[in-house]
């Protein structure tokens, strides 16, 4: 998000709806153009034996472009007063869930679902929930342990153990 607009509404400052509308419409426009571009590469015409591979997606991409341009126009030139998309304080709360979630997924990639989940739940509880660390660690281990039993042992559905596979010694 490069074009954050700060507006000082009565409800506190934050990203305005208008800015967010513009950003989302632009992203959709880019996606739409990518679809059109790749469909054109594949061929979007009618050839001897029927439609080419890009025939259908080409028009889909066009529709995305058209509708996002209209939404963009409405956002830029619209007279309607829009409010705040998200206040900074709220955004901080959202980020406090989203960023750890991102780290959690990175953790899954490295050390696998079970270890990452236990750590994530424990850290989240201790850091954001202000629980004492014994409770956090115990609950994290409990959730992760019951998941392990359910997936690996009972249902025999193996989950991702990570590139370093710290649980390799268990033999699953």
């Amino acid at each position, binding site marked *: 998000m490069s074009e954050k607009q700060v507006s000082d509404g009565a409800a506190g400052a934050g990203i305005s709806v208008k800015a*967010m*509308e513009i950003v*989302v419409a632009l992203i*959709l426009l880019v*996606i*739409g153009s*990518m*679809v059109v571009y*790749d*469909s054109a590469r*594949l061929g979007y015409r*009618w050839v001897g034996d*029927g*439609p*080419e*591979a*890009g025939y*259908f*997606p080409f028009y*889909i*991409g066009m*529709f*995305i472009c058209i*509708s*996002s341009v*209209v*939404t963009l126009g*409405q956002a830029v030139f619209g007279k309607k007063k829009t409010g705040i998309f*998200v206040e900074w304080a*709220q955004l901080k*709360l*959202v980020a*406090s*869930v*989203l960023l*750890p*979630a*991102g780290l*959690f*997924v990175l953790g*899954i*990639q490295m050390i696998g*679902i079970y270890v990452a*989940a236990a750590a*994530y*739940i424990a850290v*989240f*509880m201790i850091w*954001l*929930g202000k*629980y004492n660390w014994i409770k956090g660690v115990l*609950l994290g281990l409990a*959730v992760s342990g019951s*998941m392990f039993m359910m*997936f690996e042992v009972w*249902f025999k*559905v*193996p*989950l*991702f153990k990570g590139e370093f596979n710290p649980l390799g010694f268990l033999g699953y």
Partner: protein
Amino acid sequence: MEEINALFHGFSVALTPFNLLLMFVGVTLGVLIGVLPGLGGANGIAILLPLTFSMEPTSAVIMLSCIYWGALFGGAITSILFNIPGEPWSVATTFDGYPMAQQGHAGEALTTAFTSSFVGAFFAVIMITFLAPLVAKFALQFGPPEFFAVFFLTFCSFIGMGKEPPFKIIAAMMLGFALAAVGIDTVTGQLRLIFGWHELMRGFDFLIAVIGLFGIGEILLSMEEGLSFSGRTAKIDPKIVLATWKKLPKYWVTSLRSCVIGCWMGITPGGATPASFMSYGIAKRMSPDGQKFGSGVQEGVVAPETAAHAAGTAALLPMISLGIPGSPTAAVLLGGLLIWGLQPGPLLFVEQKDFVWGLIASMYLGNIAGLIIVLTCVPLFAAILRVPFSIIAPVIIVICAVGAYTVHNAMLDIWFMLLFGVAGYAFKKLAYPLAPLVLALVLGDQAESAFRQAMLISQGDVRIFFSNGLVGSIMGLGLLMLFWPLLVKALAKLKEKAA
């Protein structure tokens, strides 16, 4: 009375002790999912889908559809006790349900909501029993142009009936179609829209989209509103239930009207949410106590709950008879059918009689099981809502990640889930609807191949979609739905001029 015989056969399929157990497990899980923020019918079923792969299809679909019934019931608990709609279709229930709870009539409000839900669902199931085989028989004559016309109608009604700005609905829907096109083209075998990234060859699975958009997106949204839930306590004892049941019959007109609205909105994929609002609005206008709506009247709970459940249930009709789901949750169930090797659609009624009628019979039984469970276990479910969010949030995100991984055993999908979560958060706040996106993602390939086959038949002539009465009238209905808001506006203007 062929249907009645078939239905009884269905009961004999569904009524094994194991299936009954699954029903109760399913409903309990469903209510739990409906109560917890970030888990709803659609993504809850998506996450639990892999666990049913080893089951027999009939048992699996019974459990999954019972999760769905449970989730429908569960939404009402949070709306009434906490003023937090657990599901979008229970927003209208908060209008009168929460005031009732505030005045100390929580038990009464909950009983009303559950009973109305049950009535709505039951009405819709009866309709499915008799209408679905007919629709399926009729649809056996469909060729590619007719199927494309039905897809066209489905998507047009989203645009015409949606509350969101039409261009946003189109954008969301087309994004779904574009995501569906990613990967190998089923006709030519060419790779599309992967931009050299070969892991994308698999395409985007809609289950990942559902888990991200609805699950992670919802968690981010609830995070914004702060973490405190403050709710009313509720006790339901048999006395309250009986007293409430005595009062309910006098609202039979509202109830019947809501059933009809719900069924209609569920079959044409308007969905449960608009059905509940519409039903509430009409009840408010028609009721003699219209002005009191919003201050905690029973009728204001009856109307939206009945319609929401009728719609939620009716959404399964096009799913089993045509293979076209009417709601995201129905789409997830459809995904399950495909994974178990069953092709939903008109042939299902011919080739998989046991399965179809077992499913329909389980709808009756599942709703009865649901009513029993919610009436007896409300305090338990309400207690779950008092678990602090800082415990619930990470656990749900972990569950979502596991669910996303198990779909294809692909690590990349967990990243996509996160991405869809952020998109879902932004889309929800900017009024881009998620349901058409998900349905387009599910139906994209089928819609495209129906379109291409039809065009092949006609050698590229678009007029094939109006070539006979059947396909022409479905397309015409689709166009009518598409331009419905404009027509209504034009008519209103004409009236103004005349007056």
